[in-house]
């Protein structure tokens, strides 16, 4: 009799230079055969190490199972001898990983890696296994499987590799598939395809899936049941629909409030959770969530709440579960009864020009911008060109927030850098306040640096770790102002408080801060010299959900207070929608649609935009088969002729293959480059 997976009071220690720390404390959950369970949590929640422990992969790292049981079909795994555990891996339990590009050995072919997996568990002629491998690749929807078998991982796209990884995982006919953030590194349209594949395979093969994710949308779409982890403990678990609609733990409702969904009105402040998840070395006592919790009482500070039955198969570890549940219900009721779109919000959705009644001046304008990167060349090799940005014109009005979305390889970051003239274009012009931005390095160019600032994606990689944050934030002041050292220190103090840090922290170093705090430091540096324009390039993408909400709020507040104009680049559509007045959609170096934020989401005119929107997990359009993009974004080395989207477009015709569509107006301030706008 199969009973699926049973995890009971699992505790995992990790050995670090600072001593032994407990990464996961007494977590319990079950997965029935054919069931999908999602482990949801932020960084440091222990979700990845817990999933690795199920296959005893922690043996090879610094982790050690310190207590509890793991049983698969009644068989204990935690005390199994090594060679028997190895027999389990890849056969009864298989695993797929976050970055498919890094999860294959780059020097062996896909085929040999799949065949190798099968040979680890059974004796069979190589030619038979080879044929089986081809069938598996075909099964997971990989075109030309015979050819793919002979290819190396570097020659396949991320989406194809993740499919191949799934095929490899299926080769042993596993009872349980562990998927650790399987779509986090993929584009949203590809993510939708992979999730759909996983669901279909589960149905037809009857295996269980343990899906680890930080994305509540993914969990909502995939999970039968959800286990919410916080700081190495289970906060709450239960049937997915109930946990997501009526959370009983304050952390779960905090996460739900932080996640941007279509239901949240644009521009509204997000109800973010204060602070950030604790590190392993400084776990708070009592309930680990209490320092960030609105309901925290003395009891929470003193004793650990047990995971207790909340009825109808639900468990929560909270002393104040009833209050939390009531609070969450009240909040969602309040949101539901608010009028559909209130008037000031409607205005916020329109370009600034429309609000003031008079046209507000254009601050930054791109005219037919192109950036081509030559690659290859040299001894007898063909020289090729990457068309990163290929003829983009757009203008950003003073005070406006312009959002730029698109999949990786669409050229959105390059466009941002061109607008700031951090890179020089191959063709076209950039106008700043009506004047052409001078070539890089000139005196005029250096003066404009003061007005044009940037916030980067990786807050740690963009500061010098040997400088304290006072020096980091004061550096632009030293370049652009004549403030004395004392005045600079005063200004840095102001800035720190403005971004929600303490002014007395100037002498601390970047490594002493959490990811969210570092991003605040990056923001303080960007606004230090009172810029007029800020480029935020994936500024919140690397942050945990609960922290992301705080930073989004901060950015919006600052924008309002300082009257900033900004370009907000992100691949997360909901974030862009929330923060921008207008949104531009990029595809393969081209702008394909520009529209006011709400309008774009309500009435997308370009099939690509439509496909992007329907790929958002948990969105109303999700799973709508009529508007998904087929395949993956082609190489910018030789973009398709005609409309660049025609290779993936569900409504493409001969005309699309031949002629490049021009921008047509489809509404007020709404344009799309499509022959057949929707």
């Amino acid at each position, binding site marked *: 009799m199969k009973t699926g997976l049973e995890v009971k009071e699992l505790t995992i220690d990790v050995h670090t230079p600072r001593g032994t720390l407990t990464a996961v404390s007494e977590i319990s959950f079950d997965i029935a055969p054919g069931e999908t369970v999602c482990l949801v949590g932020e960084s440091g929640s222990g979700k990845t190490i817990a999933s*690795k422990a199920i*296959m005893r*992969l922690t043996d*090879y790292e610094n982790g050690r199972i310190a207590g509890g049981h793991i049983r698969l079909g009644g068989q204990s795994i935690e005390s199994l001898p090594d060679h028997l555990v*190895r*027999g*389990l*891996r*890849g*056969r009864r339990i*298989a*695993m797929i*990983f*976050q*970055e498919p590009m*890094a*999860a*294959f*050995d*780059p*020097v*062996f*072919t896909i085929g040999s890696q799949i065949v*190798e*997996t099968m040979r*680890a*568990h059974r004796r069979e002629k190589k030619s038979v296994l080879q044929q089986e491998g081809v069938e598996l690749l075909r099964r997971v929807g990989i075109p030309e499987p015979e050819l793919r078998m002979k290819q*190396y991982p*570097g*020659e396949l796209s991320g989406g194809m590799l993740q499919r191949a*990884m799934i095929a*490899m995982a299926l080769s*042993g006919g596993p009872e349980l598939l562990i998927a650790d953030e399987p779509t986090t590194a993929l584009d949203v349209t590809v993510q939708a395809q992979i999730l759909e594949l996983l669901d279909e395979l589960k149905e037809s093969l009857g295996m269980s899936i343990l899906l680890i994710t930080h994305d509540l949308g993914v969990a909502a779409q995939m999970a039968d049941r959800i286990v919410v982890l916080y700081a190495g403990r289970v906060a709450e678990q239960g049937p997915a629909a109930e946990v997501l609609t009526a959370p009983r733990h304050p952390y779960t409702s905090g996460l739900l409030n932080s996640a941007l969904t279509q239901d949240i009105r644009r521009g509204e402040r997000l109800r973010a959770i204060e602070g950030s998840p604790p590190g392993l070395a400084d776990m708070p006592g009592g309930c680990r969530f209490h320092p960030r919790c609105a309901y925290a009482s003395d009891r929470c500070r003193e004793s650990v709440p047990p995971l207790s039955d909340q009825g109808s198969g639900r468990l929560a570890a909270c002393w104040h579960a009833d209050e939390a549940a009531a609070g969450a219900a009240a909040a969602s009721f309040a949101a539901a009864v608010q009028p559909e779109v209130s008037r000031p919000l409607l205005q916020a959705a329109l370009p600034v020009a429309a609000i003031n009644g008079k046209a507000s001046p254009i601050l930054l304008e791109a005219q037919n911008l192109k950036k081509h990167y030559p690659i290859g060349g040299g*001894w*007898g*090799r*063909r020289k090729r060109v990457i068309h990163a940005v290929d003829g983009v014109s757009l203008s950003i009005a003073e005070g406006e927030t312009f959002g730029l979305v698109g999949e990786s390889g669409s050229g959105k970051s390059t466009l941002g850098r061109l607008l700031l003239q951090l890179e020089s274009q191959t063709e076209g012009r950039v106008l700043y306040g009506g004047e052409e931005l001078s070539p890089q390095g000139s005196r005029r160019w250096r003066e404009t640096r003061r007005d044009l600032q940037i916030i980067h994606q990786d807050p740690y990689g963009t500061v010098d770790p040997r400088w304290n944050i006072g020096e980091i934030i004061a550096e632009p002041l030293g370049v652009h102002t004549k403030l004395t050292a004392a005045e600079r220190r005063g200004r840095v103090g102001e800035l720190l408080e403005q971004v929600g840090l303490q002014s007395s922290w100037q002498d601390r170093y970047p490594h002493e801060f959490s990811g969210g705090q570092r991003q605040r430091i990056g923001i303080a540096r960007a606004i230090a010299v009172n810029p007029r324009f800020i480029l935020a390039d994936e500024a919140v993408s690397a942050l945990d959900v609960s922290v992301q909400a705080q930073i989004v709020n901060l950015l919006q507040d600052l924008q309002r207070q300082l009257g900033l104009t900004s370009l907000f680049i992100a691949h997360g559509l909901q974030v862009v929608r929330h923060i921008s007045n207008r949104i531009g959609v990029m595809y393969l170096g081209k702008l394909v649609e520009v529209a006011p934020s709400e309008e774009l989401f309500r009435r997308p005119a370009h099939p690509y935009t439509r496909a992007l929107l329907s790929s958002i997990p948990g969105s109303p359009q999700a799973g709508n088969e009529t508007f998904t993009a087929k395949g993956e974004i082609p190489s910018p080395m030789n973009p398709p002729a005609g409309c660049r989207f025609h290779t993936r477009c569900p409504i493409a015709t001969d005309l699309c293959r031949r002629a490049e569509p021009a921008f047509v107006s489809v509404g007020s301030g709404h344009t799309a480059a499509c022959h057949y706008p929707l």
Partner: protein
Amino acid sequence: MLQAIASRLASSLLVIVGSLALVFCIFYLLPGDPVLSMVDPTSVSPEVIENLREQLGLNRPFHERLLTYFGDMLTGDFGRSLVGSEPVLPKILHQVPATLLLTAASSLIAIVVGVALGVPSAVRKGGLIDFAARIVGLFGISMPTFWSGILLILIFSVQLKWLPAMGSDGWATLVMPALALGFVGAGSIVRMVRGSMLEVLGEPFVTTLRAKGLRERLVQYKHVLRNALIPAVTLIGMQIGDMLAGTVIIETVFSRQGVGRILADAIMAKDLPVVQGVVFFTAIVYVGINLLVDLSYAAIDPRIRRRGAGQ
């Protein structure tokens, strides 16, 4: 691929011509007169010395000498030794096998010891083998060959009387020079393999391999080592070159026949044609090793192979 090899060979030719020209210039600028080291000026009349200069072309201008020199070399004429007046080419060719044998033997020792210690020391970081590997690494790179050579002679020839201290006949004479020379290479290779293995062991794909249920041996040797060898191969190539250069010292220490020994003697005697001949030989071997390194890259890493073929 062939095109890539052709372009490598073309640049190799430049390396050889360049190194020959460099040696020529160094000798041209060097103080001292080679003729005076050939004959005893106190017993020979100045006319004879002048004649000898004339004969050897030493009194002609720089560019003329350089051109004649390269012209002769193109026709395969490497000239005659200033000391024994025997033709240079046969003199060197006669010694080449002995030196190549020594270089090959010490390279083999360096690679085998380097990999055999480097892999387990990375896998069991902090263990006993790791400790041994670090000792080898430390001693290998900090002990000069003439010192370790003499040490070996003291232990195995003088004390234990197991091996002959000098000569170049038979396998027994090869053991100690190859060990002394190979140890240096082994030191660097151990460190490189260890570091590079540790890096690859941290790659996500290693977790995939283990999650597939592969045997640990297969994970370590088939997958991790192969990836780790890519940076290590460059170093191994350089180490072989160094060992070739090291024969100059080690052949002298162990009184072995060989090209290195000839070079040492020729430098002392300012015997330009011989030195140039040896440099020519060394440059060719060096270039050959580099070509092998490039080819083995392609063998190990398909990404390089495909790129080389122009996709």
